[in-house]
């Protein structure tokens, strides 16, 4: 009963229970009194366990708020987003400037080490590594978020059509989705990205969005089908609600839960996959816009002399991906009715 989100009526019963037990202890206990107390306690105990009128989202939030895993994930995600937004203003150097160019010696010292003003040193072209890491968060965030959004939109459209219409439309859409799922997803992304004549960050976005479409479509179609068979949709239909209104007001909002969880997890996968594409040289070749995957790929030849060139961007990718994964996993656990016990 220590939940602040509970109704005021619950709070009042709480107090009265406390008062009564104190009274019972203080007063001389009679046989009838004790029995009455016990029945009253049982009655209040029943209402307490039921937690009347708490929605799934509210009870999920209640559990999330105290879940350290969710809080860590959310903190990482928030810090990353804030950093990505303000990075161009706090980065000490311009990402295209080459202040340490004269220190680069291809034979003896290909990657200048740390020195005052450049506390992570520079990359193989004499650019300040720390500034590029900071600004790199931008591209990574944009690619991850935009790709997931596009994938979500595509999947939502296909899944809603399939789940709402049913019949042969459903079969057709699902066969297309099955074929898309029959190619290992990262391979599909490589294939799509290799189509681009002039690769840019949008190549990454589109390639990663496409591999997410079938996943979201399948997920949404499944929960839409479950909604179609549910009692509240039957009730709406029998009341004569228009079919479009049933789909968009009654079915879709109720079917979105698992999709939102998947989207959080997809953000992590999108960031890792984008890094893989950049690593293979299928991403944005424009180095004036640093991106962690690209930096990691370019660090490969310097494995013996300067492994830190790979460690920093990889560390950033791992922390951010972990943040999204932790958030997604704890969201899934909180929304899963099985774990509510």
């Amino acid at each position, binding site marked *: 009963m220590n939940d602040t989100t509970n109704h005021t009526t619950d709070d009042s019963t709480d107090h009265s229970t406390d008062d009564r037990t104190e009274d019972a202890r203080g007063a001389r206990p009679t046989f009838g009194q004790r029995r009455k107390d016990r029945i009253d306690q049982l009655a209040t105990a029943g209402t307490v366990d039921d937690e009347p009128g708490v929605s799934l989202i509210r009870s999920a939030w209640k559990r999330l708020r105290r879940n350290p895993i969710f809080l860590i994930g959310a903190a990482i995600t928030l810090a990353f987003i804030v950093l990505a937004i303000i990075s161009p203003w706090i980065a000490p150097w311009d990402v295209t400037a080459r202040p340490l160019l004269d220190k680069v010696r291809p034979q003896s010292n290909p990657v200048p080490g740390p020195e005052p003003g450049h506390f992570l040193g520079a990359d193989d072209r004499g650019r300040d590594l720390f500034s590029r890491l900071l600004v790199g968060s931008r591209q990574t965030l944009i690619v991850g978020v935009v790709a997931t959004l596009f994938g979500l939109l595509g999947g939502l459209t296909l899944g809603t059509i399939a789940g709402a219409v049913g019949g042969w439309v459903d079969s057709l859409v699902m066969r297309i989705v099955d*074929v898309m799922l029959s*190619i*290992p997803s990262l391979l599909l992304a490589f294939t799509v990205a290799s189509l681009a004549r002039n690769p840019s960050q949008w190549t990454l976005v589109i390639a990663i969005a496409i591999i997410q479409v079938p996943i979201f479509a399948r997920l949404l179609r499944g929960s839409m089908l479950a909604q179609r068979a549910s009692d509240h949709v039957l009730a709406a239909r029998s009341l004569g609600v228009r079919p479009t209104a049933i789909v968009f007001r009654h079915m879709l909002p109720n079917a979105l839960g698992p999709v939102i969880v998947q989207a959080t997890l997809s953000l992590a996968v999108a960031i890792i996959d984008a*890094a*893989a594409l950049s*690593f*293979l040289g299928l991403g944005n070749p424009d180095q004036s816009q640093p991106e962690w995957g690209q930096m990691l790929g370019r660090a490969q030849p310097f494995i013996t002399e300067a492994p830190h060139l790979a460690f920093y961007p*990889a560390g950033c990718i791992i922390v951010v991906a972990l943040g999204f994964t932790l958030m997604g996993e704890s969201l899934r656990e909180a929304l899963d009715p099985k774990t509510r016990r």
Partner: protein
Amino acid sequence: MIRFVVRRLLQMCVVVIVLSMLVFLWLRSLPGGPVSAILGERQTPERVAALEKALGLDQPLPVQYLKFVERAVHGNFGVSTKVLPGEDAFQVFLDRLPATIELSVLAMLLAIALGIPLGYLAARRRGSITDTGAVIFSLVGVAVPVFFTAFLLKYFFAVEWNLLPVSGRQSTGLDATRVTGMFVLDGILTREWDASWDALKHLILPSLALATIPFAVIFRITRASVLDVLDEDYVRTAEAKGLTTRVIRARHVLRNAMLPVVTTIGLQIGGLLAGAVLTETVFSYRGVGDALATAFREKDYPVLQVLILAAAVIYVLVNLLVDIAYAVIDPRIRTR
């Protein structure tokens, strides 16, 4: 059971046919079309016209597609332009396949051999240090890009500590006899133990890198599935009947908990193919993945066609096998 297999085979055929159409159209939709992809910078209008005629590209699309299928069935996809210039594209695939089979089989064995027992242990000791540690490890394992795991392993074990070879499949200068193309197996078959041992040493790091993600996923699914089964009524019934713990664990818990794990293993094989592209690139391991990476980077379309089609067919086939295995383990599936 036979009806089930036949139905799944038919479904598979549909997927493969649609896939072949997609790969065919994919090549047609390349910037500038297939001709400019082949000619590259040497292209002139006359050359384009001549080559289009020679390749039958002036004919209608359905006719072109049928010809494409006819050639594909005979393994004729054209000649590699960049990966192994002049070599037949299908031959490139056949040459590279054993290396990748060797690598993926070892990686998958590692993932299964570590993932299932650990997942089972973690579920039985839920909330213990072992459990929490393993869960954290598997969460981090999924967040680390495969190529960075490969990079880390390479940096520490090969470069820094000099324990294992940095790259390749076998040391140069070893005069090993080739039988199957899988070097470890070849060495065993021909009793050239030093060659086999050398090939195995080259395999350890790439297969460890490749195994991380399947391991993490198999571990988590096993743990969740065992936890679910432990809660089931039939487990309580078995306990109440007075069966020994060993019998309950082996017959009731483990067998039922393995169902989702089998599906997951099948699904992971697709990811393994993509992971092989990245791992093989880091270790310069000459397999299908390395060929794919080069073909993507250098735009070697004949090779890409073969490899993508082959990867998809292998993936579909493996999933068919998984479905059959599933039906064998769980009789309820067959009737559906």
